């Protein structure tokens, strides 16, 4: 398994390089630049600004310098729009926020989604099954840009229970709505996936054998059925988890959390190349590493996969 992990890591490096080069050139294809503004800068001022950020150099030199700075000093460059901040500082300020509510959102998804799916599967074709399935479908089609304003209307304006936004150092009151807003539709997805695979597992021969052996139902479900039934959920949760902890643009903007989702959109509008590129790299590294972790988890759960590695 160590060999496998190393192979995967080795493959990740060219992937990241390809991404950096591709994103670097792609961003510069968009018309307008970080210093395009309603009041165009006089040529002499523009020349100074470009020189200051090394943007007077040919593109390949800029790319080379960028990669060099990352490799030697883990320096992702200065931000163009937040003049006295570096990309490192911006990400260091926003990422913990996104990570925190993304984590709690994932917890919410799993804690609510899995039991919902399991209950629906155990009470197959009963009232409970229909209720759970109905609830799941309802929350899946309910987009967060509808759900979030409704939550604010109820919890903030009508009942005054939760603040309408902000972060305030990550106090729990500020995490609840972003986490639920971000997670609801995934929770539904998890519930439906769990229900489906649970049904399949419950009908498989080894469960029949366990029942025939007279094992108590609780042991059958907890020890034998749940683990294999969670495999599809795990596959599903991998990319979703990356998405969650790198922030939803909508949730970050709507709840003003200060997370990095906001930087994606601000960076795109202001052509803050270095911020965008830094975020793209983070996203890429996270996706690659979480996929690796998931594959290893698979192997741990499923002996068939373990043998194939």
């Amino acid at each position: 398994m160590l060999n496998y992990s190393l192979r995967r890591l080795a493959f990740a490096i060219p992937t990241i390089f390809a991404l950096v080069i591709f994103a670097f050139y792609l961003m510069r294809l968009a018309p307008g630049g970080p210093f395009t503004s309603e009041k165009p800068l006089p040529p002499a001022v523009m020349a100074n600004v470009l020189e200051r950020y090394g943007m007077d150099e040919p593109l390949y030199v800029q790319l080379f310098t960028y990669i060099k700075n990352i490799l030697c000093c883990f320096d992702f460059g200065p931000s163009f729009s937040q003049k006295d901040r570096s990309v490192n500082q911006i990400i260091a300020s926003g990422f913990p926020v996104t990570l925190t509510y993304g984590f709690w959102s994932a917890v919410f998804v799993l804690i609510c989604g899995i039991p919902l799916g399991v209950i629906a599967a155990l009470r197959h074709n009963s009232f409970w099954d229909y209720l759970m399935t109905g609830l799941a479908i309802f929350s899946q089609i309910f987009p967060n840009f509808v759900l979030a304003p409704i939550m604010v209307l109820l919890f903030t304006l009508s009942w005054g229970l939760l603040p309408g936004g902000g972060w305030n150092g990550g106090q729990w009151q500020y995490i609840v709505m972003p986490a639920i807003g971000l997670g609801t539709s995934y929770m539904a997805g998890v519930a439906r996936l769990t229900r489906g695979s649970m049904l399949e597992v419950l009908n498989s021969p080894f469960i029949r054998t366990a029942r025939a052996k007279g094992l108590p139902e609780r042991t059958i479900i907890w020890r034998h059925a749940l683990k294999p039934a969670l495999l599809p959920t795990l596959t599903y949760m991998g990319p979703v988890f990356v998405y969650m902890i790198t922030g939803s643009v909508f949730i970050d903007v709507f709840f003003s959390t200060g997370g990095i989702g906001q930087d994606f959109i601000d960076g795109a509008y202001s052509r803050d190349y270095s911020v965008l590129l830094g975020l793209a790299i983070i996203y890429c590294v996270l996706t690659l590493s979480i996929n690796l972790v998931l594959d290893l988890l698979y192997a741990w759960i499923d002996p068939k996969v373990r043998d194939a590695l």
Partner: protein
Amino acid sequence: MNTRIALTTLFLTSALTSSAFAATVPDGTNLAENQTFTYRVLDEFSSFDPQVVEDVNGAAVVRDLFEGLYNQDADGNNVPGVALSHTVSADNKTYTFTLRDNAKWSDGKPVTAGDFVYAWQRAVDPKLASPYAWYMELMSIENGAAIIAGEKPITDLGVSAPDDTTLVVQLSQPLPYFDKMVSHATTFPAPKWAIEAHGKEWTRPGNMVSNGAYVLTEHVLKERSARERNNMYWDNANTVLEKVVTLNIGDEAQGLTRWRAGEVDRTEIPAGQYPSLKEEFPAEAYALPRLCNYYFTFNMKSGPEAFQDVRVRKALAYALDRNVITDQVLQGGQFPAYTFTPAATANFAVPGVDYAGMSQADRDAKAKELLAEAGYGPDGEKLSFTYLYNTSESHKQVAIVASQMWKQKLGIEVELANQEWKVFLETRGNQGFEMARGAWCGDYNEASTFLDLMTTPSGYNDGKFSNARVDELMVSAKSSSDTQPLYTEVEQILADEMPVIPVYHYSTNMMLSDAIQGWPINNVEQNWYSKDLYRVAD
């Protein structure tokens, strides 16, 4: 040296009546125990460094943290800041400011003329590469342009400090409104020792040394910032608000929700919601005149052939019913515009251009007549063009209404096109349009900030209008003591030539809690200072 002392007297008088530039709390006011003011900002600040800051919200914070030569009062007039008064030489090219001797930095050091010299040199320093170096160029400080271009050392800048309380500024050409420009953030003093000690990190809470009524105490990127009163500030005794907090709220509707929930005291009003909010909160919904205009610009260089004909341009301008746009589409207290310069501009009387005085029916009739004369319209050649605007709901509404008016009244087909902001700026700057949306906010409160756009050399003249007389008038306005006749003539030429169609003049729409008092509602630049505000008890 021959000096004019009229201005000096004015400032000395106001300096003596100290209540003119601090929170003026009427007797018997029941002040709230918690003197905190919280307001919404749209996005993260560009910087808190006075010489670097670019955005309006950032400049508002910097105005609280630092104090320049002059502040503005509730009406937008200059009142003493660090400077008590100034004198101007006979050739109008040397300004000598007398600074107060009791101004202090937050670390207790005295604020000296040298701090201004350092800051102004810093602003033009190619090494700092401040985008706002252009403002210093606009101020016509001697050698400014050459220093920015890297041709001279920063020490050659025409600003000097003969002693700690005297600042002498040498201009390369007379600039009648120079003193109006020194309340701008770029001109605020800078603490050399703190900047040298911390480098770029000097703007962080704890590192920052500032000389304004407040000091920065908290800054969480994209979330919040807080500033608290500066005990070293020379007029601290008259400051009432203890703490000012900004909350970043990217979504305008969410800003309003949080205002309703009492989380913020001030927020902007989403487009189109002013009338209903005014009805619901008559004392808290504001629409204030603002120093900005909104116009359509013709591409005079490479636009359609028809745009070369002044009759076509005028027909389009006349057929536009501005009242429909302001009263029925935008509904935010905007003002229909027939001149380029807003009426709210200081020392500017709106000239009576001919079409402004006509009824809309007469304007429509005249428009049809002009278009027919030019050979277009129902009986002539069919006219069609593309109107380009930057993607936004309210620009779209204005575009749809205008194009419908032109179609119904003049039979003109207008295709609407929109582009993302920076793409739009690039397209417009390269004359890649036929007709485009334009808007301009004054950099200082004087008509030339608008009318300079219409001169041939202006880098902002995207329609490439060129008129020798306008150029000449605007050059003479720079050194004239009576500018109104000159500006009147420029506006007359613009009305005759119609290189742009003025549509409306902006208003500032905001919800401001009635607990917050002292807001300068008459300041058309909306330059407000927290030290002038106070919070009353419910």
